[in-house]
């Protein structure tokens, strides 16, 4: 075991890519239909055990929609016994009062429910299915059964002006915490960026609203406003650095240093079916390739900020510049920064236009992506 590398602290277990929803900003790979094989219950338990032994303590059950897995209760119970803090990250679809109770019995610590908007019409349009009323019911059920509850709202052009209604809904549902997360533009969201990216004015207003609520309701609920990096000049310190604390296991057992990494065709991501997690975390090329700073190029290589932001997000650098070793183009020192400013200018000049087509996250569109990559 290498002495100067710490083990992971966070395990994100993506149990399945199956999902009844179709959010156009979904963090799953655009070609997710390619990876249809899923780890079995015992493979997941062994993976969690290994991650726990390496020092992981926070565990997120995610997807796709993790409730699709009928062994979820079993996995939660096993994880809890190992000493994990267990988080369920769900759309609420596939949930009912009984299941909430069974998960509680299994030891689930916390539930995060995602909403697409604060009203039924917009929510269900972006979810690609009827879900809003059920989500609300389930949020009430989660609270009634004594869980701490986080609500997650991804913010985009069509819902960001309603951020106060969103926060009112969260207060009504008695959320303990609310994430107002501006869309991160990877994968599906990058493809749909033209439809999703808000304008500067919209952001300024949303931020002011969030700050007001943060202050006014601080005894009731924590509002966390996640800024959109496109409107910044310095990148975010993504994942605290590659291979530093975060470990993502995809449904098929592939181990990834972050959810967006799968698109990097030049990296051969190891699979927990073939290799031990210890070897993967400490020894694999995939986890070592952008660890530390030796891989950096100019301008990051000699920049004073590199110990704090690690050159930003590797996936963003990869998908916008074609090489993950480049600085994240969000950085104004990046020679590719104009790729960000151009998108922002486009957002400014754009009239609300329903003619731009949204690509919903569904098997049909995924297969199209798969084919366009192959060809």
């Amino acid at each position, binding site marked *: 075991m290498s002495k100067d590398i*710490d*083990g992971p*602290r966070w395990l994100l277990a993506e149990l399945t890519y199956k999902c009844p929803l179709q959010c156009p900003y979904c963090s799953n790979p655009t070609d997710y239909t390619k990876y249809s094989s899923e780890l079995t219950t015992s493979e997941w338990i062994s993976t969690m055990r290994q991650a726990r032994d*390496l*020092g992981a*303590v*926070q565990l*997120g059950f995610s997807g796709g929609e993790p409730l699709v897995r009928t062994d979820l209760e079993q996995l939660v119970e096993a994880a809890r016994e190992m*000493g994990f*803090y267990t*988080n369920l990250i769900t759309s609420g679809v596939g949930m009912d009062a009984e299941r909430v109770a069974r998960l509680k019995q299994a030891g689930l*610590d*916390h539930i*995060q429910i995602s909403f697409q908007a604060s009203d039924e019409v917009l929510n269900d349009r972006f979810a690609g299915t009827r879900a809003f009323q059920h989500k609300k019911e389930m949020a009430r059920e989660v609270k009634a059964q*004594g*869980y*701490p509850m*986080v609500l997650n709202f991804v913010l985009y052009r069509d819902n960001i002006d309603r951020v106060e209604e969103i926060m009112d809904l969260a207060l009504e549902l008695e959320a*303990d*915490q609310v994430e107002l997360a501006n869309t991160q533009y990877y994968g599906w969201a990058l493809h749909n960026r033209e439809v999703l990216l808000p304008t500067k004015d919209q952001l300024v207003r949303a931020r002011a609203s969030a700050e007001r609520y943060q202050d006014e309701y601080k005894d009731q609920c*924590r509002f966390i406003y996640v800024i959109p990096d496109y409107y910044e000049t310095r990148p975010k310190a993504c994942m605290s650095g590659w291979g530093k604390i975060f470990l993502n296991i995809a449904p098929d057992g592939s181990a990834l240093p972050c959810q967006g990494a799968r698109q990097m065709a030049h990296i051969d991501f190891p699979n927990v079916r073939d290799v031990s997690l210890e070897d993967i975390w400490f020894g694999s090329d995939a986890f070592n390739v952008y660890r530390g700073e030796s891989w950096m190029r100019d301008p990051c290589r000699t920049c004073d900020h590199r110990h704090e932001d690690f050159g930003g997000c590797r996936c963003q650098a990869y998908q916008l510049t074609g090489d993950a070793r480049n600085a994240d183009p969000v950085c104004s020192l990046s020679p590719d920064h104009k790729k960000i400013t151009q998108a922002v200018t486009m957002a400014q000049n754009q009239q609300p236009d329903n003619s731009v087509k949204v690509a919903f996250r569904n098997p049909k569109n995924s297969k199209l992506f798969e084919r366009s990559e192959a060809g």
Partner: protein
Amino acid sequence: MTENTPLKINTGFRLQWEPAQESHVLLYPEGMVKLSSAAAEILGLVDGQRSLIDITHLLSEKFPEADLAEDVKEFVEVAITKGWIS
């Protein structure tokens, strides 16, 4: 809160020893804080029954040479503000 109010760890928070980090951590939805050994000593005594006075008393028995009252009070106040205990 008065010095006699019973203190409890809030729902969703869990205190736990982590061998990998060689320290106690406080876990909560999607996050954690690494605790100093002093903080862990105090939080370890928060059980829904004991008050600030009780906790201070127990700690001064355990560490007779230190004068802890102020530090314990200060930490408890911070922990309440952060929403860890109430």
